[in-house]
Each structure stands twice: as structure tokens, then as C-alpha cells.
């Protein structure tokens, strides 16, 4: 796990290119505190910051092939490198390190751009082909590791985080209102957009090549695909579900086995839910020692899951650390979160995970398994259930009992949207006219989030006047999605919006790497995804029971109450974290002041001021107001830290 940066072109005279690279890569020291490596030659520079996890002795990057004609810098892990290396060695390739990185250059030499299809892992890769003078950028299938790029002044720049691009003087960081509208609606921008003008994120499962004549070619090499679940040739048609449960169990065991590969100890996050508990139970099979586990607990009982965490700790005999987080800790750490996310967020839930990764590091661990991805892969979110009920209801809109199924959802929320059934029907009844649109499931969520857009200044609102979130996402859906089940379409949209744009970014890579910790996500092993995508929808969402097949695959490993436990989404206190006894934290008072809002120019100070007053009075309770408040504050922080180059408050 590491950070990378570099350029293609001649940005500065040759003698100064090393210093330029150093300026970029030192900005990413948190991603790789164990050492830097550089490769500079006319027209190209590669830099690497290393977090040593595999091959501690000889794994320094950049790494080259035998004759030095292919070079790479790489952030991530290739979990099947042992098998790949054995195959390559049998084919005559000679290696000079024991690292997983070295298989990349040999695979590239043998397969060209198709090298990436052989990799099982989480990665952002840059390959420099000296012979053909071409640069290849590749990103893992689902977007676990980041890779940004920008073209300026005739030079192509790339880096693991955007702050390294800005450090190189590639041009001003300027917030793009249209992209901000995405972030405030979808909880993150959709690749390749970022909130900054002219700065792009390589989309998951994509390759970008820059040829010797400067031509750029961006193309997908992998995508979520549900074709095998539908149609006459459906893979599981007429077959036994128990067989699928058994195959899934084998696959999960193997995914965990591969992801435990490291030359340092591997710990695990334990939320107390099915997904992380299942991973810990699987990891325990590969070691006689107790699994080292870490949890967030909350001083606010509404968000706290420690009873379930402790039950699992007792069941598996884990060596466990609980980090209790309160509102004050969240408010204090929020600016640092935004320094790492480099993009606005609508919730504070990433902060406790950033604090937890610090606890992991303090305990001497660099690697943790996390349960991220299971909800997307196996249909775990309430949104999927909500959409199922709403579709059922939409077929008979005057039914009085169909919408009452919604009352079975959201029981964990203090301010549940179904607490007032008549209004729940009014709320969830919005958007039923979109029944036949592929984004139908996401309309209520985006409608709630997008209420933050009403706080934009007239100029910013004018700049994103054409933004239609439904059409925006639909334009990115593959044509074949029309043949998939509704759940499959919902999963596809979820994977390409919230998963890659928020969960793996702001709540994943960035908050773990903030403290030099690598998260690993076995449920996002592409074999697990492809297996699950081929399953009939009702084996995943059975009635209104989410992740049914995963529950069955893990049932014998878990206490019955954990195996049967309904999903409780991970959340944290939001707007309330920024006030103490009715007084705002100093930086909050500053950034939300009329002067600062006016200077940024993105939000209208009058309504934003009303929201601030409401939050200060402790009257912000629902999702919409909380998200708008956190969204405005975090945007102000992005502006402060990156556009104005201000320090951490």
C-alpha cells in the first residue's frame, strides 16, 4: 500500500525534475512513510512512497523488468502474485525481488494492456513502456485504490491524491459548481469527474493509455455485469440454492485466504454486523492466534453497536480494541478528514473510521480486513428493500396495505421515516412515476440529499442549472442493464455512485491511509462479485430479508443472533458534532460566517445562515438538514484547504 505520483512530458528542465517529483510525493507521505523511490528519464518521472507490507527487504519501487524497458509504480496489493509469479517463471521470466509489484512488468511484457485482467487485487498502477514510449494507467475493478490525473502545460500528471498534483504547480485548484452538485446529490462525484476543474479520477475498471504521439485512450476493462443471472442461459437456472451456498462459502474462504497474504500481521475491523463478523470468523480459520480486531463505539447510544461487537469478540475469542468516539472528537478531527478526502462529504461517519485507523496503527498493525462491499454485492441496503416495496406498491398505487410494508424498514432510526405511516407513504410515494426508470430505487435518497442544492448561491445554481441527477446516471448505464432484474440495476447504480464515489473513497482508502493503514475488502474480490452477480435476485434479497445467501454461507460460523441480525447502517452524529453548549467550534464559526460564505461564492449566506442557526440551536434532526449542513461545511473546508491553500484550522 503506497502513494504514487509522476508526469509524462518536460515540465521543468531535466535537473529540476527530481525536486519536482519529490515535492509531489512528499505530499503523500501518509500513504507511504517507509521510504521514497524515484525513476527519472527524459520526458518521464515516476515517484513512489512506500508502506512496506509484502517483501519488506527488496520491494522498493519503481520496479523494472529485466532489461529496464518496462517500469512501474503501483499502489495496492496483487493478492494472487504468488500464483502469477510461478506461472511467469515457468514461462522463462526472471525476477529480482520477492514483491507482488514485479509481476506487473512481466505481465505487461507478455500480455500488453491485457495484463490487468490477470490481477486479483486492489490497485492503481502506472506502467512506463520505454520502447514504445507510452504510459499506461490502470485502476482496480471497483475503485478501491485512487488514481487522479490532469493535463496542463503540455504535461500529463498523475498521483494517488489530488494534493500531489496541486503541489507540483499543475495549475490552480478551482471548484466546479456542476461537479459540486454531483457531490451534494450522490455523496461523491462520479468518475472521471472530481470537484476540481480539469482534475480527473480514473474510473474503476478502466485503463488510460497515453501514446508516444500524445493521444489518450480511456477504455473499460471490467464492469459489474449481471447478464449471467438472467435469460434462458442463466447460470443458476434450475440449480440448487444449497449448492450455491456451498460454492459461495468456498469462494469466501479463498478470498480471505488470499487477502491474509502479507509479511506483516493482519487485523480486522469488527462492526458487530453480519459482514465483518463473518470475515473475522473466516480469518480465524487460518491462524491459531486470536484475530486482532478493532471497533468504533459511540458515546451516543443511538449509533452504538458495542453490545453486538462484544458478543462476537466473546464468541471468537478475539484480541480486541474498542475506540469510543464522541461528538467533540468528530468535530475536532473533521478538518483533517477533509484534507484527506479532498472532496465534500455529507456525513461525518468517515471521521470515526479515521480515528480508528490511528488506533490500528498505534497497536502496531498496518493492514486490516473490512466488511465493505457485502451490501452492494449481496443486496444488503435498506434502499434495495425500500425499492422492492415501492415497485410492488407502484403496481397498485391505490393499495392501502402495500406501502405499509415500508414500516418494516428503518426501525433502527430514532427519527425513522416510517414513524408516521401516513407521511411515510407521502414521502416514499414521491417518484413512483419513475417506476420504469433504472434509477427508480435511488430517487428518494437523491431527492433528500439534493435538498442541499437549494443552499447554493444564485451563480453556483446557474452553473449547474442543467444538472439532472436521474438523467446523469442513466446516461452512464450500459444498454444491457435493461435486461437485468430490478435489484441488479439497483446494485449497478449503487456500485457506481455510493460505493466508488463515497464508501471506498471518503470512508475507505482515504481515512485508512490517513494513518498509513491498508484496508482489505474480501467481499470485493472480483470472483465473489462475479459469482454473486450471476445469482437469481431472490437468493440475495429474499422477501425483505437482505443478503440471504450470505447469511446461509456464514451461518455456522456466527452466533444465531448475529447471523439473523437485520442490517444497521453505520452512522455517526452529524451537525451536533460541531457545537458545544450552543457555541460553534472556532473553525465552524469562521467557515460558516457570512463573509467566508460570500468569499467562497458557492452558497447563499442567508439560507445557509438560517441552517447554521438551526444547527446551533440543536434543532437539526433529519437527514436532509444534517446532510446539507455537513455538505456546506465540508465544501467550505475544501475551498479553504485546496483552493486558498489554507492550513488545517
Amino acid at each position, binding site marked *: 500500500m503506497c502513494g504514487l505520483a509522476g508526469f509524462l512530458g518536460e515540465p521543468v528542465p531535466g535537473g529540476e525534475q527530481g525536486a519536482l517529483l519529490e515535492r509531489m510525493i512528499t505530499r503523500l507521505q501518509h500513504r507511504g512513510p517507509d521510504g521514497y523511490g524515484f525513476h527519472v528519464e527524459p520526458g518521464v518521472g515516476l515517484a513512489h512512497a512506500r508502506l512496506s507490507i509484502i517483501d519488506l527487504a527488496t520491494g522498493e519501487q519503481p520496479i523494472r523488468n529485466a532489461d529496464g524497458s518496462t517500469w512501474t509504480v503501483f499502489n495496492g496489493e496483487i493478492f494472487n502474485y504468488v500464483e502469477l509469479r510461478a506461472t511467469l517463471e515457468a514461462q522463462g521470466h526472471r525476477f529480482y525481488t520477492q514483491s507482488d509489484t514485479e509481476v506487473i512488468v512481466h505481465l505487461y511484457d507478455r500480455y500488453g494492456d491485457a495484463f490487468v485482467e490477470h490481477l486479483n487485487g486492489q490497485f492503481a498502477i502506472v506502467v512506463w513502456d520505454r520502447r514504445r514510449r507510452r504510459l499506461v494507467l490502470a485502476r482496480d475493478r471497483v475503485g478501491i485504490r485512487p488514481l487522479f490525473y490532469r493535463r496542463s502545460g503540455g504535461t500529463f500528471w498523475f498521483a494517488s491524491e489530488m494534493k500531489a498534483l496541486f503541489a507540483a504547480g499543475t495549475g490552480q485548484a478551482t471548484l466546479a459548481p456542476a461537479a459540486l452538485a454531483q457531490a451534494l446529490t450522490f455523496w461523491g462525484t462520479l468518475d472521471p469527474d472530481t470537484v476540481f476543474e480539469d482534475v480527473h479520477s480514473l474510473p474503476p475498471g478502466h485503463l488510460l493509455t497515453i501514446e508516444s504521439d500524445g493521444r489518450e485512450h480511456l477504455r473499460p476493462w471490467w464492469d459489474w455485469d449481471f447478464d449471467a443471472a438472467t435469460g434462458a442461459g442463466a447460470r443458476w437456472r434450475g440449480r440448487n440454492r444449497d449448492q450455491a451456498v456451498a460454492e459461495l462459502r468456498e469462494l469466501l474462504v479463498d478470498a480471505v485466504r488470499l487477502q491474509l497474504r502479507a509479511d506483516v500481521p493482519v487485523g480486522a475491523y469488527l462492526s458487530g454486523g453480519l459482514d465483518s463478523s463473518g470475515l473475522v470468523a473466516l480469518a480465524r480459520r487460518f491462524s491459531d492466534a486470536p484475530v486482532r480486531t478493532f471497533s468504533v463505539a459511540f458515546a451516543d447510544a443511538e449509533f452504538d453497536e458495542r453490545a453486538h461487537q462484544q458478543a462476537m469478540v466473546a464468541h471468537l475469542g478475539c484480541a480486541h480494541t474498542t475506540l469510543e468516539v464522541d461528538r467533540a472528537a468528530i468535530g475536532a478531527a473533521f478538518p483533517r478528514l477533509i484534507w484527506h478526502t479532498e472532496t465534500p462529504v455529507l456525513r461525518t461517519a468517515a471521521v470515526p473510521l479515521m480515528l480508528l485507523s490511528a488506533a490500528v496503527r498505534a497497536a502496531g498493525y498496518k493492514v486490516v480486513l473490512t466488511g465493505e462491499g457485502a451490501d452492494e454485492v449481496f443486496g444488503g441496503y435498506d434502499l434495495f428493500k425500500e425499492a422492492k416495496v415501492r415497485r410492488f406498491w407502484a403496481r397498485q398505487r391505490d393499495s392501502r396495505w402495500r406501502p405499509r410494508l415500508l414500516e418494516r424498514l428503518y426501525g433502527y432510526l430514532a*427519527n*425513522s*421515516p*416510517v*414513524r*408516521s405511516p*401516513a*407521511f*411515510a407513504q*407521502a*414521502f416514499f410515494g*414521491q417518484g413512483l412515476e419513475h417506476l420504469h426508470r433504472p434509477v427508480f430505487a435511488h430517487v428518494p435518497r437523491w*431527492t*433528500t440529499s439534493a*435538498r442541499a442544492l*437549494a*443552499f447554493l448561491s444564485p451563480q453556483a445554481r446557474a452553473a449547474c442549472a442543467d444538472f439532472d441527477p436521474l438523467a446523469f446516471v442513466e446516461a452512464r448505464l450500459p444498454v444491457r442493464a435493461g435486461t437485468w432484474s430490478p435489484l441488479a440495476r439497483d446494485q449497478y447504480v449503487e456500485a457506481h455512485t455510493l460505493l466508488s464515489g463515497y464508501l471506498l473513497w471518503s470512508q475507505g482508502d482515504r481515512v485508512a491511509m490517513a494513518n498509513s493503514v491498508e484496508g482489505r475488502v474480501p467481499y470485493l474480490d472480483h470472483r465473489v462479485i462475479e459469482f454473486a452477480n450471476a445469482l437469481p435476485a431472490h437468493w440475495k434479497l429474499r422477501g425483505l430479508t437482505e443478503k440471504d445467501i450470505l447469511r446461509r454461507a456464514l451461518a455456522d460460523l456466527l452466533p444465531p443472533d448475529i447471523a439473523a441480525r437485520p442490517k444497521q447502517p453505520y452512522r455517526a452524529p452529524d451537525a451536533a458534532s460541531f457545537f458545544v453548549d450552543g457555541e460553534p467550534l472556532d473553525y465552524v464559526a469562521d467557515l460558516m460566517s457570512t463573509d467566508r460564505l460570500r468569499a467562497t461564492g458557492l452558497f*447563499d449566506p442567508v*439560507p*445557509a445562515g*438560517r*441552517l447554521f442557526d*438551526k444547527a446551533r440551536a440543536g*434543532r437539526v*434532526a*433529519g*437527514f*436532509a*438538514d444534517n446532510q*446539507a449542513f455537513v455538505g456546506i461545511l465540508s465544501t467550505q473546508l475544501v475551498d479553504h484547504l485546496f483552493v486558498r491553500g489554507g492550513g488545517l484550522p
Partner: protein
Amino acid sequence: MAVDEGTLRTEVRTFLLDNLLLARDPAELSDDASLVDLGVIDSTAVLEIVVFLEERYAFKVREAELLPENFGSVLAISGYVARRLAEAA
């Protein structure tokens, strides 16, 4: 508590604009505009309205009365409050 309907409507409208329609043009909130259509009504918003009414007009809103016909617009809310106040008089 005696409050005429015009005052009621004004108070309810002011509360909605200051608390739930923070960033909306006041002109959008006509007396019969649907709060659902304006995109401000979810259960949290209903709870906020209930707390306001209970504190301002000193009566308890009954669960069974949490219906769009009582809380769906300025007119609906002020009419509901007027009925409850008349009951208590």
C-alpha cells in the same frame, strides 16, 4: 388560547419558512401549496411541526391525527390547530 385563523396561518407559515424551507423562495409557500410536493415533508419535518405546535399552542397532537390532511399545507395545519383550539375552548 384564542388565535384568529389569519394569525394562525401567518405563524405557521413563518415557522415553516424559518425552519423547514430555509433555502426556498417564500413565494413558493402559498397557503395551499403541498409540503410534500415542496420536498420538505419527511417524518422528521412532521416531528418538528408537531413540537412547534405543541409548544406554541399548548395542546398535544394525537398520533391518529398525523395525517397529510392535517399537516400537508399551511392551510391544513392552521385549520387543524383552529379545530383543536376550538375543542379546548
